């Protein structure tokens, strides 16, 4: 058992601290992210998944993100809230790393955790991340781009054209290409991530070597380890957490937009003009007036018609003995 502890690989140590610390901090960061999103200060847009991963591993990406953005022009989202989120992540990560590392030192390494362990691990991991993560970004991007090009070329090879009349079907081609470049870039990403975690593990191991061995029986150690995970004053913790929960809930419902915040351009609700309110008496009056005016117009037309008839009859009577040249129809051009 003691040998196992001594020979624990740096990768195992680094992973054993970073993985639980990231999850521990992520809960708090998620709550902050909700409030900032509700305020409309953050817009993750299309690269949501990448932004979440960067936030998740913020102990190593907090300084690396501005470098990646400056060097490679990459964007993880928009808005001042994103900067606030990463600044607020710093104390949260220090707390989470401290909590996890203390228990890890005692339970897995059987060493007395030194004071200020969280801060000590955080600044080292952030510093390593500032150099290592942009390098990882560049290598993985380079390898992925080239792997995609290579997989395109492979899929268009003559050998595959013989499989069917028109070459590979679309679904098979996508699957094949994705398998080729996905495997290559995943393998490179995994290898580089392991190297990064291992570097962190080596630093932690060096810190552990300088620490005093933990004294006491196994049961005693476990009791100490267990008590380390809970605060001394549990009542105070519960009360303060309940208070924070209430404040966060009130803030959330106060700032949450009542109507949908950003309807997509493609799917806007069609503007419908409201119909005029139907007023029966007004409608009847207007209809009656209209009928009256139309009746008057009709009467006028009837009158005009009968006048014309009478005029025609009179003119016929007068022109009884006259020649046809005198008729008004002929007289007009």
């Amino acid at each position: 058992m003691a040998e196992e502890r001594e020979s624990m690989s740096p990768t195992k140590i680094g992973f054993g601290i970073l993985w639980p610390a990231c999850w521990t901090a992520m809960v708090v960061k998620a709550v902050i992210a909700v409030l900032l999103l509700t305020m409309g200060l953050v817009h993750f847009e299309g690269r949501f998944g990448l932004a979440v991963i960067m936030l998740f591993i913020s102990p190593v990406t907090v300084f690396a993100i501005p470098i990646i953005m400056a060097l490679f022009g990459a964007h993880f989202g928009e808005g001042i809230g994103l900067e606030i989120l990463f600044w607020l992540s710093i104390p949260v990560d220090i707390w989470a790393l401290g909590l996890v590392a203390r228990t890890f030192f005692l339970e897995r390494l059987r060493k007395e955790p030194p004071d200020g362990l969280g801060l000590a691990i955080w600044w080292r991991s952030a510093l390593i991340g500032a150099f290592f993560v942009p390098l990882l970004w560049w290598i993985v991007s380079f390898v992925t781009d080239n792997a995609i090009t290579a997989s395109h070329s492979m899929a268009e090879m003559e050998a595959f054209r013989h499989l069917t009349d028109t070459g590979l079907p679309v679904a098979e081609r996508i699957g094949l290409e994705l398998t080729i470049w996905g495997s290559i870039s995943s393998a490179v990403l995994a290898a580089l991530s392991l190297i990064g975690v291992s570097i962190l593990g080596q630093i932690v191991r060096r810190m552990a070597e300088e620490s005093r061995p933990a004294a006491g029986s196994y049961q005693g150690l476990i009791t100490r380890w267990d008590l380390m995970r809970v605060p001394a004053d549990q009542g105070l913790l519960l009360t303060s957490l309940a208070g924070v929960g209430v404040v966060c809930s009130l803030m959330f419902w106060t700032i949450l937009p009542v109507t949908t915040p950003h309807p997509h351009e493609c799917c806007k609700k069609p503007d419908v003009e409201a119909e005029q309110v139907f007023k029966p008496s007004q409608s009847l009056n207007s209809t009656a007036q209209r009928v009256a005016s139309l009746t008057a117009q009709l009467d006028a037309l009837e009158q005009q018609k009968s006048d014309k008839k009478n005029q025609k009859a009179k003119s016929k009577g007068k022109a009884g003995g006259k020649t046809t040249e005198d008729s008004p129809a002929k007289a007009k051009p």
Partner: protein
Amino acid sequence: MDMKHSTPAVIPDHQPSAIEKLVAFLDERVGLKEMQAKMLNEPIPGGSRWAYVFGSILLFIFAMQALTGVLLMFYYVPTADHAYDSTQFIIHDVDYGWFLLSYHFWGSSAMVVCVVAHMSQVFLWGAYKKPRELLWLVGLALFGIVITFGFTGYLLPWDQRAFWATTVGVEILDKTPVVGDFIARFLKGGPTPGQMTLSRFFVLHVMILPAALMALAGLHLFLFRVAAPAGPFTGSKEEIKAKTDYFFPRQIWKDMVGMAFVFAGTCVLALWEPVVLLDQAAPDPGDYHPEPEWYFLFYFQLLRLKIFSGEFGQFLGAVALPVIFMILLVALPFFDKDPERNIFKRPIALISWIAIMVVIVLFTVASVINREFLD
């Protein structure tokens, strides 16, 4: 332990408060303290763990889905004439309606993710083995119910996406031998999806499935308590014994943190991508390329492969493959009788799980890339 002996000594001057009186009143009638002790004092071998939170999280998500679903039902009209308009009304006119609908929508995805995570944890921990076979079987039935929840809920907004996803889904079900035709006719209620389909999907979604889920979840919990937690698959007896703890308070605390995380995560998704509807459902898809919900995309892409074309190919992909997979899952605890639970000493199980996850991820991404070829 005898409960009478564990009762603290009575202080003569102590006057019980109103709450204490109420608790005593209820305890006398329903055995409140005994119930509380049974529920909270469950020993967890090896102590509390984050890996055990998924079951409680699933219960929480279901409760939230029920709550948001009931609130949505106050405005939703399940008729072909009004379903679309009432959903638009919820999104655009009801106070916070957009958020409730978006939370409900993303909550269903969270439920599927957590069910898969829970099943993966049980599989990797070897917690389906004797004496937990029945627990595993009821869990599989619950998985089926969660998937059906997603399928039936997808139609309700009655837009093009809903209509065509359901049409494709029902056509796949139609290919099932013997019962396929009946299931398809029963679900559609006519030659094409219409009012009858909407009514049936609505009843299934808001009445039958919740009742079935509650009953089976109760049975699942009962079987879990009878079989007791499996505990970790590694560690010496001394270590497991030293770390063994009760369900309360540490595991409950972890469960609560997990629930808070899932709640925050679902809120983030609802705020990032609120639900928007496409055009109202119509028998002509127009420019829209029908596709199912994201968690079925891998399967949809799988069915696009040449091997699954033609009548036999379609049967193979749409029916035989999922049925064989489900039969394997059902039979798993009965043919894997090796008591070894350590996943690193069960290479076939580990490789199978990794292969399934890789296929799901690979074909889901492939399906997204495939959209470019359709447009």
